[in-house]
């Protein structure tokens, strides 16, 4: 009897001895915390909600574990489309939740507000915004901000080049009164003339304008041959298209990626037919490659793909996942994530195009992530 007990104790000790290294490795390989500071309310919720839905769908598909087996805990906070709130939320998830990287904030102004905090607390931001200034090397916080979408300048050059293929020479611009609108109009005025497009007039409106017939009238009176819309609020876009029809502004209209949204395509009337819209991929209407995979994940969660918000949200997540797995066996901190992100190239993501970061290149995605679409029968069809 004693012999039997002794044998069991020895066996148990042997099993415990074999298990000990594994348990120690497990302790080292505890969950990695990622923050997601996204605009879930306010005007930028148009993009923040799809970003959140896609991040959650992909994490669920991955069982919240990286390909290398590292568990991920996501800490999600709403920045309310408010830069001050974004900065506060970034501080909160770093100090309270000890995250090692942050997806967001959703807006360019939010990222600019949170950048100095990320720099001070040494945690990188993966910004899903096109705003040029967020990755300006002149920023003191430049090392800590990585862009996971094409920049506004890339967007505008692609859509203006498409416009220049027609015989259009005189262009009018309608833009929303914020940094997105202003950046767009400034870049169009610089780049347009280099490809034969002359910006003859510009008009603007705040987000909440209820009537845009005066703006459309001004462009009509200026004799523009095409109009470029630099807006991201779908109500503003559809309101301008209605106004253009009402005042007799019958010229081709082009829109930047802000209007590449399912809600815009499906809820505008016949006045939007033929509108050309730039988009990051086309997950709602013409998905290809990784977009098909992501669309299926979203549908499995009962979500309908809305636009490119899903793609840029998962670009950020997949960059963080790649950075975590690239640090196999090492302690993961905000600084190690930043250093690793600068070495990532051609990692798995659901958006089109090849993504690469480097020390002097914090814009991960470029022109090859973009497509030109045309609105036909309430759907955005990708053009060849």
């Amino acid at each position, binding site marked *: 009897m004693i012999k039997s007990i002794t044998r069991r104790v020895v066996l148990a000790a042997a099993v415990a001895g074999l298990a000990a290294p594994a348990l120690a490795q497990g302790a080292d390989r505890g969950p990695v915390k990622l923050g997601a500071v996204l605009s879930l309310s306010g005007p930028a919720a148009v993009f923040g909600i799809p970003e959140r839905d896609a991040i959650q769908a992909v994490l669920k598909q991955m069982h919240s574990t990286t390909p290398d087996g590292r568990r991920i805990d996501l800490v999600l906070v709403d920045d309310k489309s408010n830069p001050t709130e974004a900065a506060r939320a970034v501080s909160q998830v770093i100090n309270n939740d000890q995250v090692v990287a942050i997806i967001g904030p959703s807006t360019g102004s939010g990222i600019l507000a949170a950048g100095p905090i990320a720099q001070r607390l040494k945690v990188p931001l993966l910004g899903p915004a096109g705003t040029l200034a967020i990755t300006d090397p002149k920023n003191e916080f430049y090392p800590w901000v990585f862009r996971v979408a094409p920049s506004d300048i890339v967007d505008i050059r692609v859509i203006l080049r498409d416009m220049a293929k027609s015989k259009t020479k005189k262009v009018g611009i309608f833009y929303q009164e914020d940094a997105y609108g202003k950046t767009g*109009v400034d870049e169009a005025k610089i780049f347009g003339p280099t490809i034969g497009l002359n910006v003859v007039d510009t008009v603007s409106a705040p987000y909440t304008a*209820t009537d845009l017939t*005066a703006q459309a009238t001004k462009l009509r009176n200026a004799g523009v041959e095409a109009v470029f819309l630099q807006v991201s609020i779908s109500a503003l876009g559809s*309101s301008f298209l209605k106004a253009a029809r009402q005042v007799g502004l019958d010229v081709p209209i082009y829109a930047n990626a802000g209007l590449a949204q399912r809600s815009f395509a*499906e809820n505008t009337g016949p006045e939007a037919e033929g509108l050309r819209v730039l988009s990051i991929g086309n997950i709602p209407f013409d998905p290809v490659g990784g977009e098909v995979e992501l669309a299926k994940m979203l549908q499995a969660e009962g979500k309908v793909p809305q636009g490119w918000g899903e793609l840029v949200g998962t670009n950020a997540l997949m960059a963080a996942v790649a950075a975590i797995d690239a640090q196999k066996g090492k302690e993961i901190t905000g600084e190690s994530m930043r250093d690793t992100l600068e070495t990532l190239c051609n990692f798995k993501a659901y958006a089109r195009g090849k993504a690469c970061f480097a020390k002097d290149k914090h814009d991960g995605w470029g022109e090859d992530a973009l497509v030109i679409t045309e609105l036909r029968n309430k759907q955005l069809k990708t053009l060849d």
Partner: protein
Amino acid sequence: MLAIAEYVVRGALSGAIYALLAVPMSLMFVTVRTIDFAVGAYALIAAAVCWSVGGALGLAAGLGAAMACAAFMAIIFLALKRLGCEDHIIYALASFGLATALASLVLWWWGTQAFVRDAFSDPWSVGGIRLAPQGVINFALILLLVGALHLLIQHTSLGRMMRAAAANQTGAALASIPVQGIQVGTYLAGGLLGGLAGLLVLYSAGLDFTAPLGLTLSGFGAAIIFGIGSPLRGFFGGLAMGIAQALAAGYASAMVAGMVPFLFVLLVLTTSRFGEEALAGGRP
């Protein structure tokens, strides 16, 4: 010359919507001495519900939803009074909170989509100016409504009771005027008028969940510019703001066009006798 006339006409048509939003604010100030900042949110709720239901039933459902929200605001108002709150700023802040909650509700239920409907496909040509029929109908409807309300407030016993309830609540109550009933009725009227504004915007330019604050501020600007105590002045305030916006969009640089209407409001408030009266809360 035709170009200026076109901008003035377009501005007047869009300003009529601001005028309609200004009316419930004037009414509220006349009777309760506060402002219902949820008026823009009533407009959004009405538009969203009408958009979902569709048809004539949608119009009724939209107005009903807006009035239900206004009734909820009236309950909040009564509850605050029961708790002994007599500070009119608190009522205004409560309405601001309700507006935020209603916008969040729309975002949660309907998402970020724009609500737009079309009743007419072809524009009318009036004196060489192409106009949307819906805009002309909006203007006529709002003009009739504001005229009727002005007559109601100035020339009927109900209007006298409303003004008496605002001027001296205790005295009005002693004179057997149902002060609380009038106040609750004014909140409901605000819901009805705000809802109607939302339906007119739905069939004109369209709106989304971000609209309430802008609509409320436009209505508030229209209400105060020539004196908040009269719906008729609110109507003209709305037209003035709309025309200032249209002329600014037409003739000012895009860089400054956005601020011109607010500079105009500031100029009127600081230089005219209307401004002094509005800031003092004067009544006609």
